[in-house]
């Protein structure tokens, strides 16, 4: 899987760049959406 613990924690292996990018994109999306939800609730 592209989302095992080590990769998500940022310790991605260099040659797995695509997986790293996908995880990075999802993480950023997750954080942004959480922040948006808090802002909307205010």
């Amino acid at each position, binding site marked *: 899987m592209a989302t095992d613990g080590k990769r*998500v924690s940022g310790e991605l292996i260099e040659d797995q760049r695509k997986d790293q990018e996908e995880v990075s994109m999802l993480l950023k999306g997750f954080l942004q959406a959480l922040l948006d939800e808090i802002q909307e609730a205010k």
Partner: protein
Amino acid sequence: MSASSEKRVRCLVVQLGRLGDNLQSLMALRAAKQLYPQLEITLVTRDRFSSAAKRVPWIEKVIELPTVDVLLPILEEKDSREMGLAKLSQWLIPIVENPWDVLLNWTYSEASSFLSALVPARIKLGYTRRKDGSLSVYDGWSHYIQSVLQGGFPQNIHLTDILTTQLLTALQIHLGDPVDAGNAPVSSKSFFQLDLKSKENLWNWKDPTRKWIGIQVGTGQARKTWPAAKWARVAELLLSRHPDCRIVLLGESKDQSRADEIVEAVSKKITDTSSIVSMVGKTDFDLWANIVGRCQWILASDTAVVHLAGVLGTRVLEVGHGAPRFWETGPYGNGHYVVACAETDGTTLPQEISAEAVYSAWAYASTEWAHRRQISIESHFGQLGWSAEISKVRVFRTKIRPTNDGGGVVYESLIQNPIRATDWAGLVWSYTARAWYCGWTPPVGHELERSQTNPSLIQIVRPLQESADVLIRICDEARRTAGSLHQKTSKMKSEKIMDLSEKNEVQDLGKKLLELDQLLQRLAQTHPVVQPYGAISQILMHNLRGESLAEISRETSEVYQQLGQGAVILRDWIRHTLNLVKPVAIQPSNVIRLDGQTGGKTT
């Protein structure tokens, strides 16, 4: 093979909603856990709303989303986004390190879809994300939630029933039949293992022989909060007419001024001031749940306590202030009441729900054991001298349907009002969802009686016949066109290299499909009752999974088959409704003639 003999099944539930959402999820999970004891449930929830899940003994682990540690520092500009990402990554490690057997994303939000995509799992239900980051929803009930519930269209299947059915269906498919748990109730006074320690003493049971009625004085949203002055009037009526009752006010610290207003107003009218106690701002989850569990009734607007009381088996009267969708998120179980605004003709605003109406409905509900509902609620209001109030409200009583009738909670109207067009549409859509996702439905029109029909409903339903017929034809044509496209493309050696005639044929079929889709969308805009077909069509098309033209066209054909089945259901409901209002022939033997003789010819 019985599922009980299976090994443990690791299940991650993502519930990032509020406390009420958590409680509804817990109720659905309890039903699943009873049938599949091998489920090992971990719940991801927001730190602020984790209290309930932490007190459930059969939840293996509760993982809190660190709002305070991760999100607030970014919003307060104390942490950079990079720092926030690093913290979030650390938090994710225990969630993603081992694949889960089942991932249930019951939040139905943008944020939760990203989390779901990050977590490895064999079976995923609810929102997730594709590799390209777009929203992805695979299971049928989630399509329904996204299109119909979140689209605000009428339907009347309770969210707890949707979640329960969604999960149980998935478990049955993947794990096999459940153990026989009989008809074990889901709600229970011991649902939570509360940590009371000395906290219980904070609430003085001044007279445990009395009936305690809990009033939750606030809600999470201003528009749903019923005025304190009205709660005060209900409390005054209740205490002055029922000396065996005592009232405990419940709420958060922010509700303190409302509680003070109620106590002050009641104290002016009631001499025994000990008959009302305020615990507002003094309870944590444990004490709150303890009090709610001990109360005979909870009176509240649309807020989490309604679900808490439902879980604990305490009866609820919900004041439907602020037009909540109570049939989806109202009290769950048998014998709860909802008092909602009466329907208006659309030219005037709905009248406010009066304290007298709420009190009268409660008085009727709390004396069911005596009148056994042999007297009508209209008569009851009349006996209390508030006949005028009944026309301003609708009163519903909850009932769990027998399994043979499809199960689930239903809100039965106690006032014989004609059915509204939106409620009729709700019946049709709920029936359609059951046909699509449960595979079994009672006969068409099962819960619609002749007495509920009325001229204004018929005025709306009759012209819909044509829309339903057109919808059926569009779906049928689109299904066949997509089928032809599938046949054509599946025989081709390559979807990229094809001769000119093949290319033209494929293009023509694709163009025709596009036109039919546009036609369906235009038709859906013509009437609110057919509007959900447009919404669900878009969602089903967005979630096609095929990677080749052949696969996509096959799935498209299946989508139109499903939509067509839904359109046939709509047509059947229209026919059934119109048949209900047709004049009924009277048997001559049943006619009593004016001259006193029976029988004779009918005209």
